[in-house]
């Protein structure tokens, strides 16, 4: 028996706020996570994503506002909530002194699982994250991607209804990232509700059904990746690269070719629905960029539009 009924949000936050002394990390955000969806917090480092996650993980107390997780109040039902959550922290918190498999069996015991259950689930999960042949190895010998997969396996030991992932692929090489994404996608298909934070727009696009864009502790936009792009950017973007320092001067000569022009230190971005046409028009004006790239708009463009800054700096 669970306290939640079908369709009721697994996470419901109203005016959720977190302060540390004089510093306010999260400034009154409203969030709802529905069963079965993959929900993302997208934003740069320091946007308040991890602070929000620690409150949702029923570890860090709420400073102000209202928060319900699985229908329960984290202030009074912390252990009961945490029993039904899976948490994959930003920094791996694996125990280096014990083996890969023991990291799972020992962890399952914290949830009150029997030793037999712990062993069965550990073997299942090692298989799921493709680490079966590393079961008896020391954690220290694992690569970064393997450690992250083991951390994900550990967070699944109690068959959580809600899986929290804080920056799940930060610091991993591209191949390892794709392997993690693929496993998370499988979990999503199995019906596990995912809440993740990321500062990678490609990760948010790959995994999230719905996301909020956070900046400076507030939510600046909310929707599905496609909705956000449609609402805050154009269909295409033409990137022009000129010599260092020339971008400001060139911008004034091409501003009428696009709905919006962004000047970055290393390139110009022309926001337009017809990227190729804009590139040709630039050429017709006798301008000769070092490089031209026409691409579709991404969440990176949405973020740039909303905050005037890039996500990864």
């Amino acid at each position: 028996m669970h306290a939640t009924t079908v369709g009721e949000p697994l996470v419901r936050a109203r005016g959720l706020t977190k302060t540390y002394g004089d510093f306010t990390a999260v400034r009154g955000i409203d969030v709802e996570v529905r069963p079965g969806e993959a929900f993302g917090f997208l934003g740069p480092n320091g946007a308040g994503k991890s602070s929000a996650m620690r409150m949702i993980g029923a570890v860090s107390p709420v400073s102000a506002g209202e928060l319900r997780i699985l229908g329960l109040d984290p202030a009074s039902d912390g252990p009961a909530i945490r029993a039904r959550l899976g948490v994959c922290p930003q920094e791996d918190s694996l125990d280096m002194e014990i083996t890969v498999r023991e990291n799972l069996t020992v962890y399952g015991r914290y949830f009150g699982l029997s030793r037999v259950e712990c062993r069965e689930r550990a073997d299942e999960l090692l298989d799921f994250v493709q680490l079966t042949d590393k079961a008896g190895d020391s954690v220290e010998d694992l690569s970064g991607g393997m450690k992250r997969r083991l951390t994900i396996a550990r967070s699944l030991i109690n068959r959580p209804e809600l899986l929290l992932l804080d920056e799940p692929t930060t610091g991993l090489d591209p191949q390892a990232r794709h392997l993690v994404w693929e496993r998370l996608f499988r979990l999503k298909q199995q019906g596990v509700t995912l809440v993740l934070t990321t500062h990678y727009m490609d990760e948010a696009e790959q995994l999230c059904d719905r996301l909020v864009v956070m900046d400076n502790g507030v939510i600046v936009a909310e929707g599905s990746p496609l909705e956000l792009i449609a609402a805050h950017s154009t269909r295409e973007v033409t990137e022009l690269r000129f010599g260092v320092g020339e971008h400001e001067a060139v911008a004034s000569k091409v501003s009428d070719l696009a709905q919006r022009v962004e000047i970055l230190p290393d390139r110009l971005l022309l926001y337009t629905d017809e990227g190729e046409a804009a590139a040709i028009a630039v050429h017709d004006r006798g301008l000769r960029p070092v490089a031209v790239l026409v691409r579709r708009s991404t969440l990176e463009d949405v973020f740039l539009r909303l905050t005037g800054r890039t996500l990864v700096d």
Partner: protein
Amino acid sequence: MELVVRQLDYWVTTYRRTWKGSVVSSFVMPLLFLSAMGIGLGGYVDDSSGPRVLAGVSYLAFIAPGLLATTAMQTAVLESSFAVFGKFKWNKVYSSMTATPLRVVDVLNGNLLYVGFRLATTCAVFLLVLAAFGVAGSVVGALGALLSAVLVGLACTTPVFGYSAWIKTDSSFAVLFRLGLIPMFLFSGAFFPVEQMPDTVEWLAYLTPVWHGVELCRDFTLGTASWWPGVGHVAYLLVWVVVGWLWARKTFERRLVGASS
């Protein structure tokens, strides 16, 4: 309590990796100390003014309980300093534990129980070595000394847990070791009666938990234990345990949960 028991497998699993080394060193350390100081140095002490100052007790029998109490202190500090700090800062084991149904106080108590176990086993082995040297006292005396050693160990454990959760960098341990551990080892009456020292040092020694532990252990192994000052020593050590625990709970909470503002 059930939440504390859930951590048993973790501590058993980690202890299995180190128990052989720790058992061997629990035997070797007292052997070395008792041979060098008790027999080697003790030979001179017993031939000079030792019997007068120590009221007829041999130097070996005098320092044996002192070494037991200071070993408890060293074991306590060993298990509560880098071992605790690392679980906050290096491998984040505590954070992974508090993401589960375990509460901060369960994690703290689970770790303290493990240190209690380490103290009990280390001191029991130590007493076996003392028995081999013939200075462990009667069976009841040895059991009393064991309990006293565990108590003084815990009196050192809980404050150091608090300290390890409070400091920001591991270099702060140097202060604790130089100003706390080493002076207590040398000046808490393990190797000579503190009355030999100037009054200020003598009174500082009375304030340390280790002096009370040394006195308790010595009264038990020499068979001179009495209700007073025995109860006083126990009460004073319990104050250290409790105050240290309260502080540790506070610093653990702050470190793992953050300021509650």
